[in-house]
């Protein structure tokens, strides 16, 4: 009997270890990023690093200010949200409340396809279609710009926004809508003035999820944003936090201040993501408690 109990305990132990792997991974990632990100910040100085307006890592007198990257990431994400959220939101309301079953399932699988397309494919199409179009329409020397990145990001976050919003809208109790209809409101009024407010936590979660996706995207942005460390401006070539890391990693030498500074940028990006995750959890929890 004792043998059997020992065996069961061993099995329990194995599963416990497997269960703790995710926790271990998160700790490992956090520790590695902090350990490899701090030295450069110490050497450059936190204020100079975060608020320095110039990044010239390969210049004779190198400058490591990442304010352009931070602002570009913030503006780029805000722009993508500004375009992507309204389109996603109205599509979600249509699919959840108005579309019949058939139409809904067809469009939903189209949206799933959008979510599954690799980011480099978005980058490729953006590079060859969007960038020339921007150059033509706005008459700028190079279409690879913040605007191009914003549009690509807006398309990329669209499926997330739609899917999460639909889930939230589907969960609104039918009684709410029936009550509103019985009081004489029309369908559309009911959906927007009753269903949407009732689902607002879920929709907020969708927006935050979109923010996380947009700020973390690297490859697609790298292919359309031009990748010069300018302060952000709509029609200029810009560099995001993600692309700053990606573009110089390949040729920076290990142990150099340049490479360490790249790790520091990753640390800053990681902090952004952690804040976004915390916000996301806040909204999801509030949704559950209701």
């Amino acid at each position: 009997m004792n043998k059997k109990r020992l065996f069961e305990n061993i099995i329990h132990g194995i599963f416990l270890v497997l269960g703790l792997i995710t926790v271990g991974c998160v700790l490992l990632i956090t520790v590695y990023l902090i350990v490899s990100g701090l030295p450069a910040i110490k050497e450059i100085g936190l204020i100079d690093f975060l608020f320095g307006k110039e990044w010239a890592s390969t210049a004779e007198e190198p400058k490591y200010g990442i304010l352009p990257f931070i602002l570009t990431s913030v503006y780029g994400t805000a722009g993508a949200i500004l375009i992507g959220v309204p389109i996603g939101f109205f599509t979600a309301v249509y699919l959840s409340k108005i579309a019949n079953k058939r139409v809904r399932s067809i469009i939903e699988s189209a949206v799933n396809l959008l979510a599954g397309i690799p980011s480099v494919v978005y980058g490729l199409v953006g590079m060859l279609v969007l960038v020339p179009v921007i150059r033509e329409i706005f008459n700028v020397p190079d279409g690879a710009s913040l605007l191009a990145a914003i549009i690509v990001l807006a398309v990329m976050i669209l499926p997330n926004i739609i899917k999460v919003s639909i889930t939230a809208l589907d969960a609104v109790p039918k009684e709410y809508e029936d009550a509103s209809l019985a009081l004489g409101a029309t369908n559309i009024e009911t959906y927007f003035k009753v269903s949407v407010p009732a689902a607002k936590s879920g929709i907020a979660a969708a927006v935050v999820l979109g923010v996380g996706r947009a700020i973390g995207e690297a490859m697609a942005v790298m292919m359309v944003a031009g990748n010069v460390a300018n302060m952000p401006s709509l029609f200029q070539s810009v560099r995001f936090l993600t692309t700053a890391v990606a573009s110089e990693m390949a040729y920076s030498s290990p142990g150099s201040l340049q490479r360490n500074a790249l790790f520091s940028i990753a640390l800053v990006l990681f902090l952004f993501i952690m804040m976004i995750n915390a916000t996301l959890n806040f909204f999801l929890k509030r949704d559950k408690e209701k």
Partner: protein
Amino acid sequence: MNNKRKLYIILMRGLMMVSTFLTVALVLFLMGYVLIKGIPNISWELLSTKPSYITERIGILPDILNTVYIVLSTLVIVLPLGVGAAIYLTEYAKNKKLVGMIEYASETLSGIPSIIYGLVGMLLFSNNFGTSLIAGSLTLVIMNLPTVMRTTQESLKTVPQSYREGAFGLGAGKWRVIRTVVLPGCVDGVITGCILSVGRILGESAALLFTAGFAHALNGIVEGLTSPGATLTVALYVYSKEEGEFGVAFAIAAILMILTLLINLSATMVGKYFSKRRSV
């Protein structure tokens, strides 16, 4: 009804129509554009050879093989880990705090952008094993762990409690119950997790660039896993951004697009198949 209300209704309806139309048009455009530009560039020679500087020929066979290797090795590692973690959470864990911590960790993992995985993977794996497919696939293991965990957990929840109680009542030990009752019940979750992971691995580029590198050498699986190599997605990036070979890039994009379609289709079909079987 007054005019203000009428206007509001017309406006909202219009916005919904325009948005839905835009979404659908976008999907159709992307599909059409990539397939039309890509399919004419797919040839047997492209698919079956490796790139050669002498004949100035580009072949993507090594990239296809690398993708297969990385998908297989990632799945082989991530499945036991993810399924085990899910079993721990649903069958063993009693401590609410611990469960909360594990779930929070897995949510955090799924929110971390792939470029950060790429960096950490480089520090953790590439610095130890060299830039290689296995370093890349270990990085992808961490990325896909939450996916496999979540899908398995969801399917475990649908295994009726009475099955477990019945098995316990017949005198089976915990492990026996898990092996004979719980594990067979989570097959659909594992399959869905596999499909989703394959999709994510196919689409991944930023996490692989610094961990698996971008070589195009033709290798067997053992040699391939220990040497650097580009997957299809990474090859697409290199050919379009660094080398300006847009024909090849679009051919790869079309292949990826078709694979994405197939993956989505199979995920839907698996879901339908199992939900039908369950309701019988």
